[in-house]
């Protein structure tokens, strides 16, 4: 997401869009008798919502904790030659639809939260590793040369030069990965992992729009919310000097 959008316009758009969204949803909810249904289902929404968030946080968190170090490791001297092969493998892996990943995870690990988390973890891992790898490799060689020339150790170069400059790309990878994660989390229901997907799929199967929307809308809002949070983190935590957004 490299285009430079004026942040003032962004703020205004975000506010307007949210307003329109809420209004439309409100009108719709009124018309389709959603509100009473949602009120009745509120306990379920809350419970499943917590499960949903749990799935996202655990699988996403694991993916970040494993993915970023893995990406960094692949740029270090010893493992550098495997970098291209791994990148190719990751690229192919990234084309595999997440439903398939979950299905395969289930066929190996059975049903429940564990295979769901594992499947989501795998799906989320790939963009993070790929972007970390690419981001560090993309750091201008003359910066590293200057750092080496000044006598910085490889570890100091990593922390002081490579990571700050790769931050933007890594964050973009995390953002994409979490978007995929939140987007696929509803499918966890299919393999017994719970989450808001239960309301959605059950609603579809039983032909009850209200139930389905009761699951779909919170899911959609959660997805937008997570993306927004990560976007803000990207804006504020990356140091100004390497942050074109600031």
């Amino acid at each position, binding site marked *: *997401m*490299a*285009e430079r*959008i*004026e942040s003032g*316009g*962004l703020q205004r*758009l*975000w506010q307007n*869009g949210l307003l329109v969204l809420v209004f439309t949803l409100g009108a719709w909810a009124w018309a*389709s008798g959603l509100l009473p249904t949602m009120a009745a289902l509120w306990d379920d929404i809350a419970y499943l919502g917590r499960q949903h968030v749990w799935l996202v946080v655990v699988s996403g968190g694991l993916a970040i904790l494993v993915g970023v170090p893995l990406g960094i490791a692949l740029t270090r001297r010893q493992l550098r030659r495997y970098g291209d092969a791994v990148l190719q493998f990751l690229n*192919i892996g990234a*084309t*595999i*639809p*997440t*439903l*398939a*990943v979950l*299905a*395969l995870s*289930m*066929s190996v690990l059975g049903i429940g939260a564990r295979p769901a988390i594992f499947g989501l973890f795998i799906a989320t891992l790939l963009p993070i590793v790929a972007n970390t790898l690419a981001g560090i490799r993309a750091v201008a060689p003359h910066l590293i040369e200057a750092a080496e020339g000044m006598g910085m150790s490889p570890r100091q170069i990593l922390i002081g030069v490579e990571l700050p400059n790769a931050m933007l790309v890594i964050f973009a990878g995390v953002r994409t990965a979490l*978007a995929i994660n*939140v*987007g*696929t*989390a*509803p*499918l966890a229901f*299919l*393999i017994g992992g719970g989450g808001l*997907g239960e309301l*959605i*799929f059950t*609603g*579809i199967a039983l032909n009850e*729009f209200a139930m*389905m*929307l009761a*699951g*779909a*809308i919170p*899911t*959609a809002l959660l*997805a*937008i919310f997570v*993306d927004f949070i990560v976007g803000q983190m990207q804006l504020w935590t990356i140091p100004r000097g390497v942050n074109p957004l600031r």
Partner: protein
Amino acid sequence: METVDYILANWPLIASRTGEHISIVGVAVGLAILTGVPIGIAITQNRRAAASVLYAASIVITIPSIALFGMMIPILSLIGQGIGYLPAVIAVLLYSQLPIIRNTYTAITNVDPALREAARGMGLTRLQRLREVELPIAVPVIMSGVRVAVVMNIGVTAIAAYIGAGGLGAFISRGISQTDPRQLVTGALAVSVLAVVSDFALLALQRLLTSPGLREARAA
């Protein structure tokens, strides 16, 4: 292995579901190109419009596919098409907008300004400039956006099986509900293979459509 036997035994079914799958993705992405590329070109004229359109498209894409399907059901039920082929195509069409519009917009705004000035100074009309210079240069990037759209939407279409759209996702959904690992693995493998093959095929197409003058310099 049982799965292999299953595949061999049900080859026609696999083929027909693959056909359904390709049809949904193909039609939808095709339409997305017809809408997305002109929109991408149009917003290069106006930065504010560009910001709005791109942000709107990126919001659409963060909505999980099953949620999007779900939200369309009530609307499309009004014309009796709540489930099945149409919602799947519409969802894929919407999801494809961001990669295609964004890539078109980026590619065209990144065209070297010197080329634009030379073209204008020589007396090419806006349309001629687009056709002779800007679009051919933008093709590789636009195609890359189409590739992303196709691969992503092969996955989305797999989920569409849950709203009755057919396709290879049906193997997965039946495999789960009937606790049949053969169907499950068949479906998962089929969708994966389709995705990987499409990616490579479109990459080849991208190379074909790129002018030789734009490719990496060949050894003298």
